[in-house]
């Protein structure tokens, strides 16, 4: 991935209202290269809203988001390319095969050979499902294919909203290890999850939203 050396995300005193609710109240988050941040908090505390604001879907009424020192508004496209977002939906087309889904999704950003796509599917344990239409896959398998897209995106900043949904315990461990590896290579990951992320090295920083 590019620009991993100076990867640095700052959410500077964000205020966000959803309708009448003051969801983010002067939130400050800073994340540097190599950090794996686990966003925790009860339902409704704004975890998803924070991730969606960082992803650029929501505009904070006050405050600024800075990526590598630059306000995100100055180069939205550049920021979008440096970032990968995984929401509650998998962003998969049911009638297309897993491979076709990846083909379209990844090539929109940069040319990706099919071999690379297959390799990543293998890594996530869904190589056998590569040529099946995604609507026949189980919920856990779909989540893995969605994660494959994130892996292939060459993004430095990963914003993952409940990535462990529908995965079994082995899947959760594998995925956590994958994210940890990404951060070890200089990337940043902000992950929301209800479950605890068990990583032996303890390099997960927890951020509790209240």
């Amino acid at each position, binding site marked *: 991935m590019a*620009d991993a050396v100076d990867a640095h995300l700052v959410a500077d005193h964000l205020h966000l209202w959803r309708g009448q609710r003051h969801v983010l109240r002067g939130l400050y988050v800073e994340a540097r290269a190599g950090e794996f941040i686990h966003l925790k908090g009860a339902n409704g505390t704004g975890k998803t809203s924070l991730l969606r604001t960082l992803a650029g879907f929501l505009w904070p009424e006050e405050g600024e988001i800075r990526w590598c020192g630059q306000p995100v508004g100055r180069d939205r*496209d550049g920021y979008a390319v440096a970032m990968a977002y995984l929401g509650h939906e998998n962003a*998969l*087309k049911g009638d297309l095969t897993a491979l076709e889904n990846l083909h379209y999704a990844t090539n*929109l950003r*940069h040319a990706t050979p099919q071999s690379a796509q297959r390799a990543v599917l293998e890594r996530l344990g869904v190589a056998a499902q590569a040529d099946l239409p995604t609507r026949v896959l189980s919920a856990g398998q779909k989540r893995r294919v969605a994660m494959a897209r994130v892996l292939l995106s060459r993004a430095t900043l990963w914003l993952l909203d409940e990535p462990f949904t529908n995965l079994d315990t082995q899947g959760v461990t594998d995925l956590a290890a994958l994210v940890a590896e990404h951060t070890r290579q200089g990337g940043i990951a902000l992950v929301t999850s209800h479950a605890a992320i068990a990583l032996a090295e303890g390099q997960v920083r927890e951020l509790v939203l209240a």
Partner: protein
Amino acid sequence: MILATTAPLRAAGLVLRRDLALAFRRWEQVTHPVVFFLMVATLFPLALNPKPSLLADIAAGVVWVSALLSSMLALETLYRADVEDGTLEQLTLTGQPLALLLLAKTVAHWILSGLPLVLAAPVVAIAFGADAAANAVLMTAIALGTAVLSLIGSVGAALTLGSRRGSVLLSLLVLPLIMPVLIFGARATALAMHGESAEGPLWLLGALLILALTLTPFASAAAVRISLE
């Protein structure tokens, strides 16, 4: 800052191809707008009088109203599936110009819902006793008109994504905006059916298409971003 290394036009081509590929996996759904078009056209002789002279008089109008209603109904499908499975929001995160990607989606949508009408329109025209010589003008006009409709409709579809009201609201928004298309298109068709030159209105339709092509993609992009909030 690295930018996406895929060229914007190639990215647009990918979006176009994906939408077409998806549609043809369920290709019986592609026929629905045409069937609706034929059904609406059939309503007129049933409601009025199948007298040949009357039908010939109203042929141009019937073809156009039916085509517009059919296209309007099809607009619902432009973004809805993408919103539901999360694909649309990912389109805003590709680093590619969103207006261009949405234009590609609209073009795909037109190929699937507008182009079939271009082919079906002469069938209805002839069924209403119109002269087959008018078909060239008819098809050109319908092609231009449905294209403008798809473009304006894409803005409306994006605006009504987050709302509960669905296609009735979409029609309320889009119908007043496409009345000029109806006026020029029906006039061109009527002129051709009477053996006269339809150049004037056809050029006007062309002008509308160019205006729509240059302005609506940006409005659609703004509308999609608003809907995703």
